[in-house]
């Protein structure tokens, strides 16, 4: 099949998806979690039926502003507040039963100081740069060509951008937060994306020995040969992730969503970004050679 004929379409799709994400990032930014901004998280399970509003109002009555409430289970709510001291938390736990009229169980208390955020962001950036650099070098070395390495890295950056954009949108419309786990998901997708790309590259390398060096032809052949495998592999991962999203509970739900978005984007980007860029690069190179 002549996959590479429609490269303009692939670039257009990528541009549209990434563009929507970038638009959202500029307009709405991210909903940043406690891990980065600092703040407190309190999770309680009430013994009586209580609405979200009553529960939040109960805490406000004690004198603390609640920034968000999330239902995490039956009569279980997760509250987010500005950073509070341990003594304040004890006060809330003690006074809340009276304030809402139900005994309760404290399930979780997290308090992150505001100074931790910038550190996490820096460490994450370092991890991202080192991983991307290592992958670039590994691919370039393995395929004896910088072209392959750079194209693969462009595809992984494409996936990172799609994921960031998706979470800006999900954050705006569904309250998804960018937190520590999101960062983990992003780094995982980095490796998944390149995993997929290498499989296609590998077929290009193999056919090169037999069928010469026409990159356009090789790319089409390799894409056809790996398409079913690529889809099937993604399906198995997607099955696991969907199970995790539906049944895994509130702590990991957005983490699983992030991995899902990344998996889909990673599957798409291997033939349609990495290989397409490779072919385009190769054509430009050939044309320049002819001119000289």
């Amino acid at each position: 099949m002549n996959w590479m004929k429609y490269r303009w379409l692939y670039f257009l799709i990528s541009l549209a998806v990434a563009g929507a994400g970038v638009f959202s990032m500029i307009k709405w930014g991210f909903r940043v979690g406690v891990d980065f901004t600092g703040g407190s998280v309190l999770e309680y399970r009430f013994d009586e039926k209580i609405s979200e509003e009553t529960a939040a109002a109960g805490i406000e009555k004690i004198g603390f502003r609640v920034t968000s409430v999330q239902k995490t289970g039956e009569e279980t709510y997760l509250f987010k507040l500005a950073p509070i001291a341990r003594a304040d938390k004890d006060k809330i736990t003690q006074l809340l039963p009276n304030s809402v009229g139900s005994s309760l169980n404290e399930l979780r208390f997290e308090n992150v100081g505001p100074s931790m955020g910038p550190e996490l962001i820096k460490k994450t950036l370092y991890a991202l740069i080192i991983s991307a650099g290592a992958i670039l070098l590994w691919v370039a070395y393995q395929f004896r060509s910088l072209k392959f390495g750079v194209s693969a890295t462009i595809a992984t950056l494409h996936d990172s951008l799609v994921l960031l954009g998706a979470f800006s949108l999900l954050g705006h419309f569904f309250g998804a937060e960018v937190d520590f786990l999101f960062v983990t998901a992003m780094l995982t997708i980095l490796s998944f994306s390149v995993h997929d790309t290498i499989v296609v590259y590998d077929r290009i390398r193999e056919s090169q020995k037999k069928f010469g060096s026409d990159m356009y032809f090789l790319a089409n052949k390799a894409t056809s040969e790996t398409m079913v495998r690529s889809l099937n592999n993604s399906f198995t991962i997607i099955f696991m992730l969907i199970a995790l999203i539906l049944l895994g509970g509130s702590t990991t739900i957005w983490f699983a969503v992030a991995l899902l978005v990344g998996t889909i984007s990673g599957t798409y980007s291997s033939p349609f970004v990495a290989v397409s860029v490779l072919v385009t690069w190769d054509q430009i190179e050939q044309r320049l050679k002819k001119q000289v």
Partner: protein
Amino acid sequence: MRKKVFGIFLLTLLAGYISLPKHVSLFGKKFDRIDLNLHLGKFTLERNFDLKLGLDLAGGSHLVFDADTDKIPAEKRKEAVEGARNIIEKRVNLFGVSEPSVQIASFEGKNRIVVELPGIKNTKDAVNLIGKTAQLNFAKVQDASPSAVLVPTDLTGADLQNAKVAFDSKNGKPGVSLEFTKEGGEKFAKITEENIDKPLAIVLDNQVISAPVVQEKITGGTAQITGNFTTDEAKKLTIELNSGALPVPVQLIEERTVGATLGTESIQRSIKAGMVGLAMVGIFMIASYGKFGIVADVGLIIFGVLTLALYKLIPVTLTLPGIAGFLLSVGMATDSNILIFERFKEERVKRPWADALEVSFGRAWDSIRDANIATLVTSFILTNPLDWQFLHTSGPVRGFAITLALGIVISLFTGVVVSRNLLRVFIKDDTQPKKI
């Protein structure tokens, strides 16, 4: 070939045994899994096969303290933080927490001490105990008016040999009995001699806890602190005094406490999600590849059993992101098989059946190797085994990366070695008529 399959079978059986929960009930009878306990002469090998759970699953507290080193000269800061860490570890151990972890995390001039306390219920007490500087000092009191001025002596917490809870022989009230070092005892004798009929204040972290009046010179090298203590308070005071004073003040800047109930629920949910996901993957593989899919599924079960056994043997502390990493690696584990089976579809038309199988394994291996090394590189950076301070040294990222890396390595074994041998032995060519 059959030998290999037999070996795989034995390995799975062994791993399966290790993977069992502690108590198994079968047909109404209860069995206990016996832990490894080998004694061969001087050589002892003991290992308990229980899964190690992280704070988010077992419940517990993750505390981050900031060590304030501003007042300490730059070249001595490292030593001071190191000292603070050791003292905090001592305190935590004396407090009676099982398997605590106390680590230093330094980044851009900031020094943090990360304390992890699994299964702890009363975090408040632990935080108070750990964060106390516990600077003990004996001070002379100049004129006994309310505006008394305290003059610190050279007798401090450093002169203590031991502190323990003691009850007053007269009124039975709890107090703390102090035993000084030899040098400390001499200092104490000198101070008491000079201050007969005057009060001597015992000061902890700039707070006077008691100021008894000295009756006579005390030479025995022991002293009693009596105040308004409960037994519990007296016990905590002894922990602080015995572990010594922190060389730098510390402040709690981050806390994450998860109750045990939440952890249990998370585990149950994850197991359910894992089972459902696994079933879907299993069905999908059979639907796509027929009897090859069955082989892949058997490989997948072996993968699960081996992974669980290794988690227990290494041991890997399992966290919620860690479970996610494991589930993801299950999805990735099928990839080796899919690559091989797809390859086989191509090769089958070109050459005889058995050859096609071998060629598929050989050709697919290049892709499998190259692709998985890339994932391993990333998980290596995320795991950060060399504890590079500019990367994450603790937390969810690490837990996730460890299980992902382990999953990839095991999936290479099950996806390539295990399924290859199973295929060779169990799947026969049915496209050719059987020879008689």
